[in-house]
């Protein structure tokens, strides 16, 4: 069973650049057209099931706007994105 993950996107930083959307392997991200950040951007959000907590979105995010969670099943999760 694939790991289950979740992301939190900080509106203060997200500029709606969409790099995460394209990079996301299970394609669970889209810009939230119902929401505007204080700077007038549509921030990204998870819009369907399937996030695995792979953190590739956070890896490509130029604004460090994303915090990634991955459900711990057996082995402990690594502590930083991109470090392997």
């Amino acid at each position, binding site marked *: 069973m694939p790991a289950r993950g979740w992301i939190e996107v900080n509106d203060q930083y997200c500029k709606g*650049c969409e790099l995460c959307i394209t990079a996301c392997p299970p394609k669970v991200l889209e810009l939230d057209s119902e929401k505007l950040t204080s700077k007038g951007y549509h921030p990204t959000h998870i819009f369907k099931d399937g996030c695995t907590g792979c953190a590739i979105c956070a890896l490509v*995010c130029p604004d460090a706007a994303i915090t990634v*969670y991955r459900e711990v099943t057996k082995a402990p999760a690594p502590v930083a*994105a991109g470090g392997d």
Partner: protein
Amino acid sequence: MTVTIVHPENMVYTRPEGFTDTPTHYCPGCTHGTAHRLVAEVLQEMNILDKTIGVAPVGCAVFAYNYFDIDFVQAAHGRAPAMATGIKRVLPESVVLSYQGDGDLASIGMAETVHAAARGENITIIFINNAIYGMTGGQMAPTTLPGMKTTSSPNGRDVETQGYPIRVSEMLATLDGAGYIVRRSLHDPKNIRLAKKAIRVAFETQVHGLGFSMVELLSTCNTGWGVTPLQSLAWLEEHMIPAFPLGDFKIAPAVAALKI
């Protein structure tokens, strides 16, 4: 469902410690932000944030000092390697970072860049190459590609009157003082991971006193190039990588022997 996942124990990635809370001024999708993030992550992982002194350039990254929670100084255009030299010579135990764009490093600052490398100055330069001058409105840079339209090459860079782009990493690699000179890219996850590894090796080079280190990062400028952030990634891959091949141009044997 999400309640159980969102739990401190499950946190796999968050905003680096080395960042301030200040949102960046960079355009949406600008890979300056990505480069900043990788540097902050590396400094945090090496546990040297509180020893690091940054030198900010003139260019889009002029405000880099607002984003890293470390000591920082502001250099005149192109002079960051000289300022970095001044700092490192009086504070040899510090870690000195010079973060520069292509105008700063390869145009007005070319002499400072070459001589810092020639002297084997134990500093680390992060060189953001996006083939254009962003902050001043999109003029030609020393790394602008032939035929590329900019505000000062409106009909495309004409090699007859405006010359050819400069491959800085290859040039600096000819200098004996250079310890680690590599070129990486920020256009997709695989290359971002490789870039981060290179940044780590660069800082390890400095920390071990093994000479001048520089990571040239091919970067996007969607505003200057007149494309969307997503299109800029493809543009980089299609146009810049052939002109600026990714690779390792100088790795001193002592650097290669480092166990990181």
